[in-house]
C-alpha cells in the first residue's frame, strides 16, 4: 500500500519537473527497444538489437553467482577491457522475456556496470558488449534452486 | 559395550518375531515397515498395524458415525491446541471432513476425521515427549 502511495506521489511531483527533461541535452543513444524487450526468445531479442550474432570474448567478464540465493534478486556485474564500448546488455535465456537490461555507455563512462535481475529458473546468462567493431559476449549458467525454508 | 550394541541392533532390526521392549515400539516398528492393514504378534497375541483412529474410521459409513468421528476429531484438536502443539494440516482436514459430511460422503468424511484426530493425538504425544526429551538436544 505504502509502496504504491509513494510511487504515486513521486509521479505527481515528477510531473512538475518532467518538463525539465526536454531542456536537457540528449546524446544519440539507443532508446528503449520494445521489439527487444518484448521478444520471447534470446535470438529474437538479440536480433532486434544487433546485426550479427555476438562472438564470445575473454575481454568481457561477467560476475554472477553459480547458485542464486534467490531468483528474484540476482546480482550481476559486467565489465569489459575492450576499447570504445558503447553498450552493455544482459540476457537471461530462460526468462519469458530474455532481455533484462541494456545500458548505454557514453564516452567517459567505464564499461563496468552492476545490477540485480530476476530469474524464473536456472538459465544461461549472457552479457553482450557493443563496440565499434561489433558485439562480444560472455555467458555462464546461473542455477536457481528452490529454497529450503519458505517461511 | 557388546551388550549395548546388541540392544541397539535389536531395536533397529526388530521384526515380527523379535521382541521389542514395549508394545508401542513393536507397533511403531511394524507400522513403519508394513504400513496399515498388517497383522503381527506381540507376546503371543495378534494385533494389526492400524491406528485406533483408522479402526474407528472403518466403522459402517453413515451419518451418525461420521458425525461422531468428526466431533471426536475436533475435541482432540482442541486438546492439541490447548498444549500449543497443533499441526498445520489438521484444520484443513477437519474442514474437508465437514464438507464431505455435508455432501453425504460419509466414508470420505470419516477417513479425513480419522487423520485429523491422529494428527492431534500425535501433537499431544509430542508435547508430553518433548517435556522429557528436549534437554538431549542441548550441546554441552
Amino acid at each position, binding site marked *: 500500500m505504502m509502496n504504491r502511495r509513494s510511487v504515486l506521489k513521486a509521479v505527481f511531483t515528477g510531473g512538475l519537473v518532467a518538463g525539465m527533461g526536454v531542456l536537457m541535452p540528449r546524446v544519440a543513444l539507443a532508446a528503449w527497444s520494445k521489439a527487444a524487450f518484448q521478444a520471447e526468445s534470446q535470438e529474437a531479442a538479440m536480433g532486434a538489437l544487433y546485426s550479427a550474432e555476438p562472438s564470445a570474448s575473454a575481454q568481457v567478464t561477467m560476475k554472477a553467482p553459480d547458485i542464486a540465493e534467490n531468483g528474484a534478486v540476482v546480482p550481476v556485474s559486467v565489465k569489459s577491457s575492450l576499447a570504445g564500448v558503447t553498450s552493455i546488455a544482459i540476457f537471461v535465456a530462460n526468462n519469458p522475456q530474455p532481455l533484462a537490461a541494456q545500458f548505454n555507455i557514453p564516452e567517459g563512462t567505464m564499461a563496468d556496470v552492476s545490477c540485480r535481475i530476476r*530469474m524464473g529458473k536456472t538459465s544461461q546468462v549472457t552479457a553482450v558488449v557493443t563496440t565499434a567493431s561489433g558485439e562480444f559476449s560472455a555467458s555462464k549458467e546461473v542455477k536457481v534452486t528452490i529454497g529450503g525454508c519458505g517461511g | 559395550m557388546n551388550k549395548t550394541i546388541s540392544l541397539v541392533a535389536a531395536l533397529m532390526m526388530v521384526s515380527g518375531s523379535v521382541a521389542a521392549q514395549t508394545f508401542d515400539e513393536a507397533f511403531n516398528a511394524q507400522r513403519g515397515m508394513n504400513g496399515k492393514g498388517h497383522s503381527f504378534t506381540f507376546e503371543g497375541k495378534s494385533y494389526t498395524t492400524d491406528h485406533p483412529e483408522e479402526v474407528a474410521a472403518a466403522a459402517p459409513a453413515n451419518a451418525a458415525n461420521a458425525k461422531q468421528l468428526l466431533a471426536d476429531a475436533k475435541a482432540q484438536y482442541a486438546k492439541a491446541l490447548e498444549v500449543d502443539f497443533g499441526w498445520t494440516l489438521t484444520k484443513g482436514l477437519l474442514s474437508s471432513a465437514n464438507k464431505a459430511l455435508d455432501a453425504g460422503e460419509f466414508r470420505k468424511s470419516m477417513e479425513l476425521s480419522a487423520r485429523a484426530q491422529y494428527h492431534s493425538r500425535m501433537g499431544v504425544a509430542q508435547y508430553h515427549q518433548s517435556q522429557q526429551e528436549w534437554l538431549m538436544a542441548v550441546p554441552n
Partner: protein
Amino acid sequence: MAKGILRAKAKAKGDNTVVKIMAKHAMETGNRKDKSGNKIPAQFIQTLSVAHNGKTVMEANMGAAVSKNPYLAFTFVGGAKGDELQMTWTENTGASATETAKIK
C-alpha cells in the same frame, strides 16, 4: 523538497565518480496475479538516465526482469565532490521524474 523514489550514493574517487543508485519500485512484470486471480498490470521503470553537468553519463533501459527496487552501479570519469547528478526515470506507464543527488 519531497523525496523521490531514487536514492543515490555517488562518491568521487580520484579522477572518477562511483555511482550507485537504487529506486524504490515494485517493477511489476505484468505476469503476476493478485489474490482474486486478476493480472496485475505491468508497471516498471523503463529508462533511467543519469547526467553530470548536462552530459549524460549513463542510460539504462530496463525490462521487467530487473529486480524489485532496481539497482544500478557504474563509474564515470570526472565529477567532483559537491557536483550534482540529475537522474531521470521513466515508467512504462509514461510517468517520469527527474531527481538529483550530490557527489560526496
